[in-house]
């Protein structure tokens, strides 16, 4: 049971991936990508958690106080910014595709293959 947090992260990753693979709308698909990415935040923050630890902010606290891992939080911050950038770009690309092909259904966009 103390593995529940990690299982949640893996679950979100799979759910997001399934959403990306089956999506019928590029706007919807972009959101599914953010869901998939949110699994990495959940996993990162879970593995860095220390039971009974405080946030790694030592204003008004002794520097030796028990605190959670600051590294995973720094990584999560970077990750969140990446997700904004990627979503904006994919939406812009989706709009371009829509302007040219008249659809946001990825299954309908494929006019060339092989």
């Amino acid at each position, binding site marked *: 049971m103390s*593995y*529940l947090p*990690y299982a949640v992260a*893996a679950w979100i990753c799979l759910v997001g991936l399934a959403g990306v693979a089956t999506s019928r709308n590029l706007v919807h698909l972009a959101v599914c990508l953010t869901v998939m990415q949110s699994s990495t935040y959940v996993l990162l923050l879970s593995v*860095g958690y220390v039971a009974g630890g405080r946030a790694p902010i030592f204003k008004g606290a002794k*520097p030796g106080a028990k*605190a959670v891992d600051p590294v995973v*939080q720094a990584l999560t911050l970077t990750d969140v910014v990446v997700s904004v950038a990627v979503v904006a770009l994919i939406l812009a690309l989706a709009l371009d595709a829509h302007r040219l092909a008249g659809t946001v259904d990825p299954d309908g966009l494929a006019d060339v293959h092989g």
Partner: protein
Amino acid sequence: MSRRGRLALLGPALLGLGALLGWGVAGLPAFGHYRGPYGFVLDRIVVPLRHTTNVVMGTTFDVRGVDTMGEEFILYAAVLGVTLLLRSGERGRPGRQAGERLGTDGLRLLGVTMVGGGVLVGLWLAAFGYVTPGGGFQGGALVAGTILLLYLVGGRSAYAPFLAEAALDPLESLGAGGYVVIGLAALASGLPFLTNLLGLGTPGSLVSGGSIAALNWASALAVTVALLTLFAEFLETYVVPLARADEA
């Protein structure tokens, strides 16, 4: 591949992947038992060495400052990319038109108050980022978001000054490029790239952390302008033509 074929392939693949990830996370230390050492070392050394009481920001802007430089440029590249994509698609469209206003005077008043408050809170978040929770990204995003409220409450004319590309482009480059310049300043003085140069100050006050403050403000500027440009590109090129199409 037909949709049914895809699902038939995806199902087993996800099961396999789920088994793999499940097997993987079962080997992790139990929740709440982070074993270190990296994080514990930083919890111990950042405050004495850098005088920033927010260790996360000390990590983001100093210990792992180069990651954040990459992050700034990811946002920068995304904005450049969105601009490139959306503007190339809009060539030949008729010019923009003056915007429309929203709702009643009371609603607008509320909005303007919120804008003032939001900008203040955003600046506060950015300023105290390395002392208490917050930082350049969070503060910058809040400032950008509240300036955007002007678009809703004041119409395009009130928001327009914030959209002048001639002003936005150099400012954003100043933010992202400023980060690099601060790093290069250390290199020029014979120290490793991004070395903290300025005085460390008193822990728990605004005057702490040395270069962290400068990097933090560079990043706040870059993020604010980046998000403003991003919103502007999406709103200008997309919402305004939509309104026109509806009138027609």
